[in-house]
């Protein structure tokens, strides 16, 4: 192909993505430096960093930041540990393995609003939910999940959706593990834990770090599960940064402050993205 044609074929994707990135991004940065509230459209003008100050001195900011970190951290620990355990369990031939595999990864394909509703109503509802029925059957008082443990409830829902993702990735990379090496280790009398520690874990080190980084990107942006179940409450107990910014823009109509929050979210995500991009760069061959 002649070089001009190569450039023309590449142009649409590059130009469109460039527009998609630069236009909204620069608008967000611009909005974040002006006074801009849809309820008071007459008050406008450059106000420097006041929106940022307003955003992080908001009494909801600190709880939302902590909630975000707790949410991301707990889901990461749960999904990686459970994902490792389950993928090791099914990494052996047995009758019906294909079915078990499909059952294990299915939750990942359920749309987030559906899984949030299923957990909120049919499982966690304190009156008619299954958990309540189980508690009653055991003679215990049913737990008011969303009322008393809102953040934990969200953590459980998100972990249910994302453990299958970890299982899928770990399962895929376990298939490429050197079986002869494992057999040799077994013959040498190496037990399960010593094999796990010296062979499997090093083999899975990369997939584990990829799973952690990708989940961080997605979990910093968790929205639908909170929107459908707790609406961030009670109070701000289950409000994360994404939801806080959504509230600022859609309910307080404060474009300036919401944009300042948006810039903060972008910076937070970029810190993770730098590591992720580095990890991806090592595998991408051109």
């Amino acid at each position, binding site marked *: 192909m002649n070089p001009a044609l190569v450039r023309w*074929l590449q142009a649409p994707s590059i130009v469109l993505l460039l527009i*998609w990135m630069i236009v909204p991004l620069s608008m967000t940065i611009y909005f974040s430096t002006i006074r801009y509230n849809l309820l008071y459209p007459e008050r406008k003008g450059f106000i420097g960093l006041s929106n940022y100050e307003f955003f992080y001195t908001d009494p909801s900011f600190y709880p939302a930041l902590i909630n975000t970190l707790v949410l991301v951290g707990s889901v990461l620990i749960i999904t990686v540990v459970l994902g490792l355990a389950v993928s090791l369990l099914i990494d052996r031939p047995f009758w019906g393995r294909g079915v078990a595999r499909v059952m294990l990864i*299915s939750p990942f394909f359920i749309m987030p609003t559906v899984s949030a509703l299923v957990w909120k109503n*049919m*499982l966690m509802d304190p009156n008619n939910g299954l958990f309540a*029925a189980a508690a009653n059957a055991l003679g215990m008082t049913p737990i008011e999940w969303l009322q008393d443990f809102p953040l934990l409830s969200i953590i459980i829902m998100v972990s249910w959706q994302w453990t299958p993702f970890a299982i899928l990735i770990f399962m895929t990379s376990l298939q490429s593990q050197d079986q002869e090496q494992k057999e040799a280790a077994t013959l040498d009398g190496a037990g399960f834990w010593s094999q796990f520690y010296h062979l499997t874990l090093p083999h899975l080190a990369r997939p584990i770090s990829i799973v952690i980084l990708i989940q961080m990107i997605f979990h910093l942006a968790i929205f639908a599960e909170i929107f459908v179940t707790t609406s961030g409450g009670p109070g701000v107990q289950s409000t994360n940064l994404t939801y806080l910014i959504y509230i600022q823009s859609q309910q307080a109509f404060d*474009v300036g402050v919401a944009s300042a929050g948006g810039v903060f979210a972008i910076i937070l995500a970029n810190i993770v993205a730098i590591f992720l991009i580095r990890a991806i760069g090592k595998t991408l061959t051109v």
Partner: protein
Amino acid sequence: MTDKQRDIWKNRIAVFFAWVAALLFFFPIFWMVLTGFKTENQAIAIPPLLFFEPTLENFTEINERTNYSKFALNSIITSFGGTLLALLIAIPSAYAMAFNPGRWTKDILMWMLSTKMLPAVGVLMPIYFLAQNSGLYDTKAVLVIIYAMINLPIVMLILFNYFREIPKEILEASRMDGTSTFNEIRQVVMPLAWGGIASTALLSIILCWNEAFWSIVLTTTDASTLTAFVASFQAPEGLFWAKVSAVSTLACAPIVVFGWLAQKQLVQGMTFGAVK
């Protein structure tokens, strides 16, 4: 017990726990499907019913009581439309990059992937205003455009990896015969890459179908997709568990099947190619 017997027992215990895990993870889905076949009273019965006479009433009533088919159609149009648009943009580009990689190809691809890592909420206000001012708010078109753009990086990467696996000799042979570039793509590359393109499309459709942020923020009634429609049942008065379950079952079933089919592409796409 001999060592061999011990190994057999260890294996059996592992298989047992594997099934326990599989049943536990699948249970909420099973329960949702089951509830879709109950009457509203059976759905909230205490103790919960495992055995009952199934009814199809929810599935037939969905369309009378709600606009299910409209939302389903919106989901189909936006996810297929977004996917098609992304493919149209990505196929020529990925083709050019894979067969004529330059000094910057890798950097360009990495930069593309990095745009996927921008949090949606960071550009919420601009996109919202742009949609409103252009008259695209609450239209299927705006979702098609956004879905195409947010999936373009992943689609590019997977297609790039597929095209790279096509042996270059085949292309050279056809070039010797004097085939034009357009015909080369159409007659030589496409047939070989067809499977790859189809499974890339499958992954993109899954991601569009389950997208919840933009469909909730940018639509009200006309263009709402199934994710936004299901979200509207969040209100306490929407306590029609059986009907919600029937809707959810219909909304999720095709995508779960797609997901089973596209596992390999999903691994590649969701990890940005870092795990294959």
